[in-house]
């Protein structure tokens, strides 16, 4: 499942909802990305996105993770709009019978989201506004998933 929203999310509540009424889940992984102040240089962040394509890309990534690993549940929540240091930005939760699938799928979801989902961050600080630049490390992170079969399967 995927969601794009302005409001904050509650990690505990999301996990509780995801496993509610289920007794087949053996492992749950959650990843939360948050806004850093970068040693006091960032006052706020604006998250811009491409409505429509954002949801389509997140759904594709979620579908791909579910095709690669035996997940019992998965959730991506990404916030948009104005955020300040300390705020949550993104939440990924994966659930599976055994931990390997959930661990690997969570990492896969974040790596793909970082390079495919149409979001852009603009930081505001004492030196004005600045669009965050894409990191080469994010592209490199994708490389580890290019093999169709993964050892954890």
């Amino acid at each position, binding site marked *: 499942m995927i969601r794009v929203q302005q409001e904050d999310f509650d990690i505990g509540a999301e996990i509780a909802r995801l496993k509610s009424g289920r007794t087949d889940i053996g492992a749950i992984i959650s990843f939360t*990305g948050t806004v850093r102040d970068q040693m006091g240089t960032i006052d706020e962040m604006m*998250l*811009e*996105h*491409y409505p*429509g*394509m954002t949801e*389509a*890309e997140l759904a594709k990534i979620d579908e791909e993770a579910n095709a690669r690993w035996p997940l019992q549940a998965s959730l991506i929540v*990404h916030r948009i709009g104005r955020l300040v240091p300390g705020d949550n*930005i*993104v939440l990924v939760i994966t659930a599976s019978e055994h931990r390997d699938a959930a661990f690997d799928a969570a990492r896969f979801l*974040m790596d793909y*989201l*970082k*390079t*495919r*989902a*149409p*979001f*852009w*961050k*603009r930081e505001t600080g004492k030196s004005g506004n600045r*669009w*965050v*630049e*894409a990191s080469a490390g994010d592209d490199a992170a994708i490389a580890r998933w290019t093999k169709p079969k993964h050892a954890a399967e």
Partner: protein
Amino acid sequence: MRLLYFAWVREKVGRGTEEVALPPDIATIGELIAWLKTRGPEFANAFARHEVIRAAIDQSHVRHDAVIGNAREIAFFPPVTGG
């Protein structure tokens, strides 16, 4: 055809979206970018480093050699930075 611009491409172009009639000889995203650059200094500036600009046809990522065909909307934006 509907064109959309995001992040610093939008800021440099000075608008987020517009309807344009493309000249009939434009077949690919690369050719569309070359034509956009002739539309004024704000476009020339926004697309100056055209190799860093990413594009989407009807909300799917495409490369610059992609054929536009019967696209309804084309978007231009910098590399994404979510997450």
